[in-house]
């Protein structure tokens, strides 16, 4: 299926690159609907990969790449179900999203995240599975999970550790701070900075460049330099589920969801 239009994302092949466009209002929050669509993509990827040399993941929404996990859905799940059942559902969700992320991480084609605006939490984690991150100058990155009494649960910590120095990882996780694209490039997270609104164009130019080289060689090089930390990823799910059960998390989620003020995304 070379073209697909789902509720939360769409894809098509453009000039030899799969373009996966996220478009769930208001800011690509990743919940059940997005997971369903991502699993469609995961199933289609082997076939698409035969027709393309690169994958570009981007967002068509003005607000940004993705604000992360659908916290409203996560909170509702906790309210509507008995605690044990809610926890089992959370674990199942995480295992499913990890399965998608791991496939994207290991995909035998060059993957590029073209990000802009808010690239937080699960959205940041989606960008991290890609080989190259291209960000426009208004991109902003964050792992805000600590503010909710959680840790990143979509594979962010093992991938961040894989890509960055441990001191930087500690700073980001323990302060929960957001940071801009200049800092992101400085720490080695972002490969190229594009002008505002130009990340996709720059990503397409990069995809065109990688398309010049032998696919098998590129896939072999990628597999060699980009190990998937499977054991740590499983451990992350265990830690997340352990933390999720605590009252402090329910309270943190409630505060976010019920916030009628204008500041839910500020620390």
């Amino acid at each position: 299926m070379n073209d697909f239009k789902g509720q939360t994302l769409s894809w098509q092949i453009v000039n030899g690159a799969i373009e996966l466009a996220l478009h769930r209002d208001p800011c690509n929050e990743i919940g059940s609907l997005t997971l369903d669509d991502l699993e469609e993509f995961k199933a289609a990827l082997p076939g698409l990969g035969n027709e393309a040399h690169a994958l570009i993941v981007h967002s068509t929404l003005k607000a940004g790449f993705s604000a992360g996990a659908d916290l409203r859905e996560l909170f509702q799940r906790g309210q509507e179900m008995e605690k044990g059942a809610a926890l089992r559902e959370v674990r199942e969700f995480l295992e499913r999203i990890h399965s998608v992320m791991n496939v994207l991480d290991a995909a035998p084609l060059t993957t590029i995240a073209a990000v802009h605006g808010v690239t937080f939490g699960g959205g940041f984690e989606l960008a991290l599975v890609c080989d190259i991150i291209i960000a426009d100058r208004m991109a902003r990155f964050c792992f805000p999970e600590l503010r909710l009494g959680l840790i990143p649960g979509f594979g962010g910590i093992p991938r961040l550790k894989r890509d960055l120095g441990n001191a930087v990882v500690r700073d980001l996780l323990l302060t929960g701070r957001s940071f801009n694209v200049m800092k992101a490039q400085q720490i080695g997270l972002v490969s190229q900075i594009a002008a505002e609104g130009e990340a996709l164009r720059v990503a397409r130019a990069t995809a065109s460049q990688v398309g010049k080289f032998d696919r098998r060689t590129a896939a072999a090089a990628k597999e060699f330099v980009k190990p998937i930390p499977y054991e740590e990823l499983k451990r992350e799910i265990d830690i997340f589920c352990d933390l999720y059960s605590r009252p402090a998390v329910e309270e943190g989620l409630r505060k976010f969801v019920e916030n009628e003020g204008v500041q839910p995304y500020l620390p």
Partner: protein
Amino acid sequence: MPTTDHTLDQILDLAAAHFKVPREKLSADDDFFKTLGIDSLQALDLLTRLEHHFRIDLPDYELQGVSDFRTLANRIQARL
């Protein structure tokens, strides 16, 4: 190094231009959320623009409890 008043002026100019609010309607002690009509995502957008403009790294937790331009200017001044 610019004075805090100069920094404040630059913040007001940038905010007015970006959020298309008449410059004369902004003053130092205004609540910028209310005056600019913005939410937290737009506040992060403003923060990013200010970081680029002043060439600083300003962690967003520095904005905790900050809602007026004058205090924002003091936070930025401390990073110049």
